[in-house]
């Protein structure tokens, strides 16, 4: 296979790995952000209930 064509395949393979890993980290970051927000909201509600009791 000519070098120029092989370079395209190599770039595509490494690009795909980078893209999937970045995508995974973005999704993981969003999951963390959502969970942190939910935990904080419920935690504050629990604190309020304790204060009101």
């Amino acid at each position: 296979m000519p070098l120029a064509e092989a370079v395209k395949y190599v770039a595509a393979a490494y690009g795909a790995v980078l893209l999937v890993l970045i995508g995974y980290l973005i999704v993981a970051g969003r999951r963390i952000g959502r969970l942190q927000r939910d935990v904080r909201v419920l935690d504050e509600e629990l604190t309020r209930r304790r204060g009101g009791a």
Partner: protein
Amino acid sequence: MQSASTAGAEAGARPAVPGLATTTAILAAAGVALVVGLVVGFWIAPTDASTLGFSQKIFYFHAPIAETALLAYGVAFVAALLYLRRGEARYDRLGVAAVRLGLLFSLLVMVTGTIWGRAAWGVWWAWEPRLTTFLIACLLYSAYFVLRGAVEDESRRATYAALFAIVAFVDVPITFFATRFLPAGLHPVVLGLSGSGMDHRDLIAFLISMAGMTLLFVGLLRLELGIEALREELRELKYRLGR
């Protein structure tokens, strides 16, 4: 004792992800190792003299990703055994995180493998032993999540998932040894008893990438377990609020 989330809420801060600093350090170390592996692979190791030519450079990520996927399924297998023996939920969480990452790495193997297959063999897919057994592993471990989604009771779900993870693991050694026992396939044996057959610079690049990919797996596994710990915290808070 005060929970992490309670402490965080009282300080007006976000609830902490357990061990995030260490996880970040591991992921950074993984990134460094992977970049070094590529530098050695692309600039120091020689270009393959066989028909593979420059496309052989895909190997420095493809093979370590494949080994890491199998490692992840191995961790899920051990976690399943530990769950069945001890019944502790943390082993179920470890199993879920390991299988999720196993599937992530499997996806990467399939993507890099099909691209490399097209470049090296002229086809996107071939029904040869290594590819076929790897595809079976992907399908089996995808079914793991289908099974988990089908069982509502937490304890039963964890038990069934653990049993499934043990059965599914049967395919992992078959996949690993497929190139050794069925040499008619297109995949070469990378590391055999008689050595690797690779140029020592190729081998160094491969081993550095392998270390980087293993560190990446460990870092992501810790991240997944941190997420599971937050999820557990959320469940606990809901329970205390009567929801």
